[in-house]
């Protein structure tokens, strides 16, 4: 790891933006999981 500087902590706005982005991606991944689980019902052997 290279050198590190310490800056003020994540601002409320920055943290909220990051958490919202994380939440959106989380729902997307959850939907992908559900789709994978259900998709088998529509595949004919």
């Amino acid at each position: 790891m290279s050198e590190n500087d310490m800056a003020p902590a994540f601002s409320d706005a920055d943290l909220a933006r990051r958490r919202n982005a994380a939440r959106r991606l989380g729902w997307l991944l959850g939907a992908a999981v559900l789709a994978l689980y259900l998709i088998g019902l529509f595949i004919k052997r």
Partner: protein
Amino acid sequence: MSTATTHAAEHPADPYPGGLMRWLTTTNHKDIGTMYLTFSLIMFFIGGLMILAVRAELFQPGLQLMRPEFFNQLIGVHALVMIFAALMPAATGFANWMLPLMIGAPDMALPRLNNWGFWLLPPAAILLTLPFTLALFGIGDGALATGWTFYAPLSVQGGMGVDFAILAVHILGISSIMGSINIIVTIFNMRAPGMTMMKLPLFAWGWLITAFLLIATLPVLAGAVTMLLTDRHFGTHFFDAAGGGDPILFQHLFWFFGHPEVYILLLPVWGLMPHVLSTFSRKPAYGYTAQVYSFIAIGLLSVVVWAHHFFTAGMPIPALVYFMFSTMAISIPLAVLFFCWIATMWKGAMTFETPMLFAVGFIVLFGIAGLTGLILADVAADAQYHHSYFVVAHFHYALFAGGIMGVMTGVYYWLPKWTGHMYSEKLGKLHFWLTVFSFNLTFIPQFFLGLAGMPRRIPDYALQFAEFNAISTLGAFVLGLSQLLFAWNIWCCVRGGPKVESRVWEGAEGLEWELSSPPPHHSWETQPTVK
């Protein structure tokens, strides 16, 4: 400079509850990491006790201690406990504790999901082991007796233990998916400024690939065991040949999850290794980019090789050839990793503290797993070794020497950071040497037993296998007992011991070593910037 804008400022007096409520309601990544690791250690001993009972039965030919049905239950639940309730939670515990510290995040991105993900585990573990207890009171016929693979049609015909295990696997799977989603979104969204993906610590890279594998494969396992459940209770015939179904379909579905699962268990450890080797060699990790691309390659290959687990079930020749060569292809990126690990140590100023001993032990013993895996990947040779003790020995070199010894490496490496105290090096080294000695004493004889034709999953065996089985049992008991040293060392370290500095190890590099030991309740109140 902006002030009072921290996550900590939202909770000025840290008013989290004490006692049990603290642990039930916590959303702090360090608390949740500690719970995962504690749970994992407890389940490691429960799974270990099960297999010691199995080894005691196998000490001599003939049936001494238990009925064959109970023997079958023990081996199946041992595997499920060790995989789903010991190894996977240990890796998730590492991720919870270390990822935010390593990437400069104040916590995991979704802390409440994190709490929920953990608290699904204890009920699932109870469901897995409850049938044993119920059977003692004359209720039901015990746990699942199909082995951990749930193969149909045996699992379709099995007792209620199969239903308990199906439900437990669903819950464990949901927990893992939640953990994986949280890890992915944390790595993508919560990195400190300047930490690009190609500056991400290798441990985080290993876990990122693991999380994607879990998300891709666990729904398939869940689907397979749901189909099994409907075959058992709702009149479907997915896996019943008499009703137009196909038992081999279950094997395909199970191993589509089951083979990537091996890498799910190992990738976090492979990510951890360069950190440890680099620290105790006092050199940067060799081949960062090569290791990242190897992780990605292994992740991709792991989902296209599943059928090598059942070559003997019968499949067309082109399929056999494809699965043989694709499986062998995994050895290429894996060899790159081995090369990078060795090159990291090359000409380094090496010292052999306990984590380094475990890391080097891991490389040697896990190498044996890789080489014996190549033998099993060969279609012609596999016909001889399939379902023999050779396979048992091979996957224990992968999952004990590769997985559990990897976890032990991480525990000894990070324990002083977590607790602020140094563990006993003397006990740690004793633990290492006893583990390596007894592990080999247990499993080398099993290679010979397999080569001589002893099938796995049998409680009794021909007289010709007696000596090697006696040696293996002796080794297993020493191995089991020596783990008490591990638990004792951790206990003593948590309770006290010499204080350590923030950079616990002289050669350690990375953001996590800039925080105090133990780290503050809120991890990064001043945000690091990575240059």
